């Protein structure tokens, strides 16, 4: 066997090993998940009752903004990159990522980006308070001085994501073991390949939009300032041209994870592999022509409204295909319900509910009532929490024995699942009701008629938070003192990653494996 890892901190600082970098990404995103979660709990604590009790409205806005930014760019995206780092080479039989040194860079600039973003909380005027969508002119002319640091933090996160995406594409297209044709690749690899292309296409647009903001704020241009011939609505178009594909960046890899887990525990091959691939590609392509459904109330011409409404509704077709395929995979299988399977099934159910509210939101005339209410908050949390967070959690439970060589505690895993599942629904389901009853999003205080739903949501949020502490404890105790796991871990799972020993050695597939 080749040499093992170096000792001490420099191992992590200089490492080019995909497994080390994958672990660092995952731990980093775990930390960010707790940070963003704390911001969320500040929000929910303030909203527990009507009236202003805990925070000032301005700080409340900083919390909603930071919660969104940290969760999207700090928790979900790095977690998926971490999983890709660990699993893509193992799944395609490659010894490492194609560009290992760039891999090191793309991770290590992230902590600086988030240190910079978090430091704005302690600056004069406070952190960004204009929402994670940072609409101009609230984020330009009317922004706190810390906006410049926010812009640079976004630039660094963007650079990190782009480098990660280039690396993943280069790895998948060049490093596959002989015989691993494109249509034999596991779906996680496929979904990540498509995600990486989305990242390449839209992260530069995000960088562009914050650069335009920077120029408007400091260099006297007027991209988004009506006084100089610009247009604040242009901001929204450019932002959502990035923002909508971004939504799929956060969900496509989740599809891949679930498509790996469900067949294992149903003991039956994935139903409709090729239609899964085509559906993923269709979703990715459609994601470029639906962005303006985020801005139905902005005053678009009727033709635009109709186009974006129909295009958005169309997305439910490939998404539906995926859900049907998962159900068909489960059908007539021989199922067991270990923690990864529980999270995956919850993913399918809850993500579908999020899809339903998405379909309702696509109906432009009805969106005039839903837009910017808690109904929207409920919708995107139903897609993102069970979608991204549950699938990542499922993936961690599924592959942790392979990474650490030790089995997690199944009872504790199930406790985690049920706490998280109940907490999630108690938090987010009432938001549908408060939204339909007329509660706008991003408000720190509300009328008494929304009080009961909000109190329930807040209780659920703290329950969900507590569930994640169980998760953290379970992961740590597995790594420290879990029972030894077998090489296969599960009952005859599919994939090259299960052909290597547990824990996966520091270097794997130095000799490419044979793929039948």
């Amino acid at each position: 066997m080749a040499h093992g890892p170096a000792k001490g901190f420099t191992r992590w600082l200089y490492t080019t090993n995909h497994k080390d970098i994958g672990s660092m990404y995952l731990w980093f995103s775990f930390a960010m998940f707790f940070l963003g979660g704390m911001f969320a709990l500040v929000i929910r604590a303030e909203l527990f009752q009507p009236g202003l009790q805990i925070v000032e409205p301005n700080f409340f806005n900083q919390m909603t903004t930071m919660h969104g930014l940290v969760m999207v760019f700090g928790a979900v995206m790095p977690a998926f990159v971490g999983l890709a780092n660990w699993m893509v080479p193992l799944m395609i039989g490659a010894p490492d990522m194609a560009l290992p040194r760039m891999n090191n860079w793309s991770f290590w600039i992230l902590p600086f980006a988030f240190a910079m973003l978090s430091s704005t909380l302690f600056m004069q005027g406070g952190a960004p308070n204009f929402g994670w969508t940072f609409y101009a002119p609230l984020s330009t002319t009317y922004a706190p001085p810390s906006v410049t640091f926010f812009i640079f933090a976004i630039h660094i996160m963007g650079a990190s994501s782009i480098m990660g995406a280039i690396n993943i594409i280069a790895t998948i297209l060049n490093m596959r073991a002989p015989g691993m044709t494109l249509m034999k690749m596991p779906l996680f690899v496929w979904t990540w390949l498509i995600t990486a292309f989305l990242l390449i296409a839209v992260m530069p647009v995000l960088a562009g939009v914050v650069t335009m903001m920077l120029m408007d704020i400091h260099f006297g241009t007027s991209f988004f300032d009506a006084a100089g011939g610009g247009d604040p609505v242009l901001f929204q178009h450019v932002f959502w041209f990035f923002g909508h594909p971004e939504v799929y960046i956060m969900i496509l890899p989740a599809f891949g994870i679930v498509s790996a887990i469900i067949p294992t525990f149903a003991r039956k091959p994935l139903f409709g592999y090729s239609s899964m691939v085509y559906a993923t590609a269709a979703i990715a392509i459609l994601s470029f022509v639906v962005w303006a459904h985020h801005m139905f109330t902005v005053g678009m011409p009727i033709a635009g409204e109709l186009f974006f409404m129909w295009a958005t509704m169309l997305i439910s077709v490939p998404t539906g295909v995926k859900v049907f395929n998962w159900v068909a995979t489960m059908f007539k299988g021989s199922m067991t319900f270990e923690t990864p399977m529980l999270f995956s099934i919850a993913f399918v159910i809850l993500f579908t509910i999020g899809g339903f509210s998405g379909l309702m939101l696509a109906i432009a005339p009805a969106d005039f009532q839903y837009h910017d209410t808690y109904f929207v908050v409920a919708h995107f949390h139903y897609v993102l929490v069970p979608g991204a967070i549950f699938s990542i959690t499922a993936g961690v439970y599924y592959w942790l024995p392979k990474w650490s060589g030790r089995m997690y505690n199944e009872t504790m895993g199930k406790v985690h699942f049920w706490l998280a599942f109940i907490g999630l629904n108690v938090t987010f389901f009432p938001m549908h009701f408060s939204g339909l009853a007329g509660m706008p999003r991003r408000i720190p205080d509300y009328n008494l008629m929304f009080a009961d739903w909000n109190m329930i949501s807040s209780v659920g949020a703290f329950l969900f938070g507590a569930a994640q502490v169980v998760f953290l404890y379970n992961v740590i105790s597995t790594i420290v003192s879990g029972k030894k796991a077998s090489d296969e871990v599960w009952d005859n799972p599919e994939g090259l990653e299960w052909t290597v020993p547990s824990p996966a050695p520091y270097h794997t597939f130095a000799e490419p494996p044979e793929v039948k």
Partner: protein
Amino acid sequence: MKLSWPKNPVTTLSLKLGLTVCGMFVFAIWVMPPLYDAFCDITGLNGKTGDKYESVASAVDTSRIINVQFVATNNEGMPWQFGPEIKQISVHPGEQTRINYLAKNPTGRDMVGQAIPSLVPYKAANYFHKTECFCFEQQALLAGKDAILPMIFIIDQDLPEHIKTITLSYTVFDVTDRFSKEELLSMVHDGP
């Protein structure tokens, strides 16, 4: 010397992807805004009215009467008194009409304002032609001075049948700090 892609396929691919990234960045900053403006021009999105219109002699369509309303808004921090002389007027398509906005700078500072037009319904934007407008350029007003700001417009005979009312809004912005004192003075109108 002819440039060729490096031999290593990983390097080649990474370079191509890197170029795509740069391309998308350029696209976001230098292509999307002009593209959006062009799109607005074509569709009348946001009610942006066009630039100066060279008037062409045309028949007045006396069979139709279009009601044109004028409104004014001061943007934040703009202390001028600003508004239309008359709030609405009925015109025939093809007829050239002159109206005035009035502006007064009540402060002790010399100031420059920029009026931004916007019009509803958006469908009418491409049929509302301005042959002369104070909004084509910035307006400078010395401390305490006032000015009459004229606007001459023609409504196109091709205005869609169903449109009976057009509302034209001007929002006036304070753009004083974009100009030096000398520039400001050179822009000043000789008061009425």
